[in-house]
């Protein structure tokens, strides 16, 4: 069947900006034509077709929309703590389009987020990729092209090192040994479950076998793990310490599933060689650290160092506040780690796009990709910059000038009201 993607048919011509394409260098005084939500043409002196809105970007910096590879925004729930293994839950089921964090995201140039299950469980739920279309229904935000990913978590959080449960017995697992063991147990269960189905299907298909076989009981908790074993879904694993990260790589090989990305990975610089060799990405904070013991060696050089060792690195916010200043974090990678401007920008654009499996549609300014764009007043890697406009599929979702206009109008209205009140008071 032909899958026809209906983009919000928006047309836009951005003119005369400094285009930071990320993958194809910088275009000075460049134009971008977006038709039907897709970048149709990038170049110079592009004429505006009829009925196409033109945005003057003279003196401004135009970059691909920022992608946050690890957030929990736009949700009405993050952790399912009622059980230890909760692979059956889906973040797509609890989307909350009214979460104002989505607006916060677009105000900082973010156009796409990987919004994830929390780290309270060794195996959490299925994550979802959204476009930050503030004001739209949640269904319109889901990015179907993205990889299917399942959240895993290691270390202090799943072993509940920092949370007290005064009532009742402690939940298994309480150690890193247990975390690893329980993940292994679940995958072995899933393999057994897979074998039951294989036997059933085989017996059902063959002519010699028994008739009216009863199928195995459907297990929604194991189904996602089966998908992982079949390569239809990948692991995104919350890990801090270098040792637990290596153990999880070992575990994935032993059991036969694929890891897309390690989350936080504050000690990745200690094992950059191994992570690069396995072709696994990392999604990290630039310098948020020391908030717990396993984050106490999370140095700011991590992202830059690992990039230079060939690891695919993205910067994430994991926060409804930090999400609006990811471009500031990217700039810090030049100071700590010596990355170039282009390498720094990749950390928040094409690299997370690759990690999410959406690099064909997003992550750089290229013809054929979605018209997801952020316009900055000054170079996005300057501390003095701010996001002026955020565009998704050719549609404007954040416009600072419009915001300022509305604010002024409101202030004027308020003043007028007060004046009227005063006048009334005088006449009475």
């Amino acid at each position: 069947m032909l899958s026809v993607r209906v983009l919000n048919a928006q047309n836009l011509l951005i003119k005369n900006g400094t285009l930071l394409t990320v993958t194809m260098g910088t275009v000075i005084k460049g134009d971008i034509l977006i038709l039907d939500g897709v970048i149709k043409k990038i170049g110079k002196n592009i004429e505006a077709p009829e009925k196409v809105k033109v945005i003057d970007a003279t003196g401004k910096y135009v970059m691909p929309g920022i992608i946050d590879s690890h957030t929990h925004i736009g949700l009405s729930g993050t952790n399912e703590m009622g059980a230890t293994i909760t692979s059956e839950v889906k973040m797509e089921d609890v989307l909350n389009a009214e979460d104002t964090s989505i607006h916060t995201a677009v105000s900082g140039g973010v156009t796409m987020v990987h919004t994830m299950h929390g780290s309270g469980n060794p195996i959490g739920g299925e994550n979802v990729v959204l476009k930050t279309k503030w004001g739209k229904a949640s269904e319109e935000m889901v990015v179907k092209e993205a990889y299917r990913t399942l959240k895993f978590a290691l270390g202090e959080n799943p072993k509940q090192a920092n949370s007290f449960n005064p009532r009742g017995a402690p939940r298994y697992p309480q150690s890193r040994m247990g975390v690893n063991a329980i993940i292994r147990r679940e995958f072995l269960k899933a393999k057994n479950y897979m074998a039951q189905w294989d036997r059933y299907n085989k017996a059902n298909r063959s002519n010699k076998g028994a008739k009216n076989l009863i199928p195995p009981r459907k297990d929604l908790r194991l189904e996602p793990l089966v998908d992982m074993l079949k390569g239809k879904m990948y692991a995104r694993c919350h890990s801090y310490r270098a040792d637990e990260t290596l153990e999880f790589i070992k575990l994935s090989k032993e059991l036969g599933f694929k890891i897309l990305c390690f989350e936080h990975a504050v000690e990745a610089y200690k094992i950059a060689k191994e992570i690069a060799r396995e072709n696994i990405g990392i999604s990290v904070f630039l310098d948020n650290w020391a908030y717990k013991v396993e984050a106490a060696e999370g140095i700011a050089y991590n992202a830059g160092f690992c990039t230079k060792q060939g690891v695919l690195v993205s910067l994430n916010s994991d926060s409804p506040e930090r999400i609006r200043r990811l471009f500031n974090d990217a700039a810090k990678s030049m100071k700590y780690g010596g990355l170039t401007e282009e390498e720094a920008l990749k950390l928040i654009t094409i690299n997370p796009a690759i990690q999410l499996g959406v690099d064909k549609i997003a992550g750089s300014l290229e013809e054929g990709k979605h018209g997801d764009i952020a316009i900055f007043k000054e170079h996005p890697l300057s501390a003095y910059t701010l996001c002026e406009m955020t565009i998704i599929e050719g549609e404007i979702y954040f416009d600072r000038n419009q915001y300022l206009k509305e604010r002024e109008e409101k202030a004027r209205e308020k003043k007028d009201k007060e004046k009227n009140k005063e006048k009334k008071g005088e006449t009475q």
Partner: protein
Amino acid sequence: MKRSIFALVTALLLWGPGAAQLNKNHELVAIKGATIIPVVGEDIPEGVILIQNGRILDIGAGVDIPQNARVIDAQGLFAYPGMIDSYCSLGLSEIGSVRATQDSRETGKLNPQVSSVEALRPDSMHIPISRSNGIALALVAPSGGLISGKSGLIRLVGWTPQEMIVKSPLFMHIQLPGGRGRTQQDTTKAAPPQASKKIKEIKDLFHRARYYQKRNTAAMKDARLTLPAFDEKLEFILPVVHRELPVMIAVDTASGILDAIKFIKEEQIQAVFYGAGEGWKVAEEINKAGIPVVLGSLYAMPSKWEDGYDAIYRNPAVLNQAGVKIAFSSSDAALAKDLPYHAAKAAAFGLDRREALKAVTIYPAEIFGVSDMYGSLEKGKAANIVLADGDILELRTTITLSFIDGKETDLSSIYTELLEKFRKRIE
């Protein structure tokens, strides 16, 4: 003999903790060729700074370099005064989730007796990181409760707490309720208790302290009167009541700020605001009252959605334009190094860039009463000098050298130590 003892005592008062501990090194150092940004006055392209005995001996474009000077070639670099973090928990907090490493907050409501510098850990891993980002001084402040305790100004170098103290106590910290840093989701929750109620409690404490002292004084004069029993809380709030120790009042909401202004006027105490996230709504009133503002972290969301997404970001500019003296703070330990970026963020949202720089240098020095020695590069001041390869507020800028009170400091940190350790693995 008597006179010499008097001189010694005076010298001790001047050079004990409280006065600048200047480097006793007589070596003459000349920093040559840097673009000097003194913060006060015009920039000096390709200038010279002479340092001796911990002070700036001379500074300018045409300063002669004596032959015996050790010359530091700073061609292409920029010389700034070391920055001042106006509120942080450096040395009081190591690892967030580990209670054993948290010493910035006492239990209970009234803690005027505690002093932050008495818990200061000179070996904190966070201090060298801040220092290597161009920060020289920091106000180390207690938090929590209604009266949190006393803060002190420290230099980010020294082997012992005493070596680090520039001035302590500097403020008594009062914490009025407010919604700092709440997200939109939180704002739907019940409103926090009114600041005015808390102010009543403080006023009551002040009254009791006055009465306590009156009884004390009376008992001292008349042996027939009962000497009141020692009351720790009243005893330690007295310097505030007597206007010997200024207060720093953490307050966030516009109404809270107005209540606090009234309180400050009534009590005639010297005060500085901390936080003041909604300061922009009452900037005129703050200015009229002549109260400086130490801003909270800009890594925060506005407490009210209706205030607009950028309320926290533009707040410093509005206050500054109204004439309020502002200073930035990291309000953190692990991310105290980010102080310059709070200033730059405010500049992105309308604050004049020069004013942003002043608000991490000379303004805090003035607010803390140490501008005779700190906050700018001027002849006679302490040699707090940072050499940077670019704008000191920019994210990509690297600090190449830092003098604190005339002493060249170590720019390594746990960041660089771990980096070097694991770099060896790949070599």
